[in-house]
């Protein structure tokens, strides 16, 4: 019987040794620079953060809406890739990895794939610096970007790359980096939308910006989990100023039952519910100015 227990214990210990060995090699690879980062433990449960992170919408949806509205492409709004050399700490690198990710999505949705190659390079460079470059194969992405015929594949590979990187960071107790990337992505997406709305006055885009109230609340909750980090506290304070403006926005939801139909084996539902946004011009201008201010401090 004792031998049974000993053998079983040996197997269990082997299992643990394998997994802890993986973690050790990750820690060794990351080095001193990342130790401070690992010390930032989330204040809320990993599960709650995961649920909140899942809720943050992709900037691609916002970009698609901008493109569908007929707005012209403008690379003047984007963060110049030359700036990527200026980001020296992981906090800035992570935020701008998100910013460049959103810019890349904007370019791809507009099929500016050839000019997006420098953005792929910026994403890859910052991801390498943060030791998560393995999720972006520069050569494959560059090859896909060489033709707008590959737009679906390019969007799919970049989005899955970002999602896998996010999973990996959270699984390796680097959720704070994941939260910063997400913040950069969201901020850049809303910034681009606000610039387009300011120029065009398109009410659908203005409304979509007002709806970001819900996402911003979730984003602040995610970041608050890591508020013991000084840089994070400063960022949360800036976002709370933005939240104060978004709190002036009223969202009304009216429910009406949807009607399901089956078409070629696919269940199709047309929603009958409605939502409306009430936001004054003053609030919209304040939001736009604050987005501009926060972004210029980040990039």
């Amino acid at each position, binding site marked *: 019987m004792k031998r049974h227990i000993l053998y079983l214990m040996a197997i269990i210990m082997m299992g643990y040794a394998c997994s802890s060995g993986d973690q050790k090699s990750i820690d060794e690879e990351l080095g001193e620079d990342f130790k401070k980062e690992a010390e930032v433990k989330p204040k809320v449960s990993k599960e709650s953060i995961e649920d909140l992170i899942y809720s943050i919408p992709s900037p691609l949806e916002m970009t*698609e809406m901008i493109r569908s509205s007929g707005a012209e492409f403008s690379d003047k709004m984007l963060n110049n890739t030359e700036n990527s050399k200026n980001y020296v700490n992981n906090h800035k690198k992570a935020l701008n990895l998100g910013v460049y990710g959103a810019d890349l999505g904007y370019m791809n*949705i507009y*099929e500016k794939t050839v000019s997006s190659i420098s953005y792929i390079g910026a994403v890859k460079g910052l991801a390498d610096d943060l030791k998560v470059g393995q999720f972006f194969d520069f050569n494959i992405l560059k090859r896909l970007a060489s033709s*707008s015929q590959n737009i*679906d594949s390019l969007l799919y590979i970049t989005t899955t790359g970002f999602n896998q990187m996010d999973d990996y960071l959270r699984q390796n107790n680097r959720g704070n980096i994941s939260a910063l990337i997400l913040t950069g992505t969201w901020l850049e997406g809303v910034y681009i939308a606000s610039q387009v709305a300011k120029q065009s006055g398109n009410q659908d885009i203005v409304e979509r910006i007002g709806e970001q109230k819900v996402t911003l609340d979730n984003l602040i909750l995610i970041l608050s989990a890591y508020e013991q980090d000084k840089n994070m506290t400063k960022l949360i304070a800036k976002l709370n100023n933005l939240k104060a403006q978004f709190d002036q926005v009223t969202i009304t939801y009216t429910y009406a039952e949807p009607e399901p139909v089956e078409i070629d084996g696919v*269940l199709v539902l047309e929603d009958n519910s409605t939502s409306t946004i009430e936001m004054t011009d003053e609030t919209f201008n304040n939001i736009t100015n604050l987005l501009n201010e926060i972004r210029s401090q980040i990039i």
Partner: protein
Amino acid sequence: MKVRLLLLIAVLLWLPTRYAAAQCNDQLIGVSAELLDDFTYIKDIKVRMKKSKKGKLPYSHKYSVILNKGMKYRFISANAQEFDGQLVFKIYNTQNVMIMTNYSQSTGKVYDVVDYTCKASGQYYVEVSFLDGKEGCAVCVLGFKRKKTEYELYLDN
């Protein structure tokens, strides 16, 4: 001899579960990506659940997701073949009212693909479980429909 046999069985039972767990995640995203058709991939939920206890409600988990007015979304479920469980997802609106599910109680059919046109922006909830509480591994993939570009329209013609 008996001890060695027991150990061998233990190892053989342990290895496939590790293998299955690896197989039932990212590979399934690739499978479901094919069902996206002309929808653009946004995100996925990986679901792995054990068999639920007898007489109890099936294990489930709720995720929140923000859906936007004017967008057409596609929800896809793909199940790992090595398990019996079929993924059932239910979508609840901001008021926590169930607005759709991929499982038809009247016909017993589980749909792999559900298209949803959103007309009210807000925070929705996706509840995932396996039909009849069976053990399963699956992914639920979410995509949105892009308006065709001039080049895509040219290719269609």
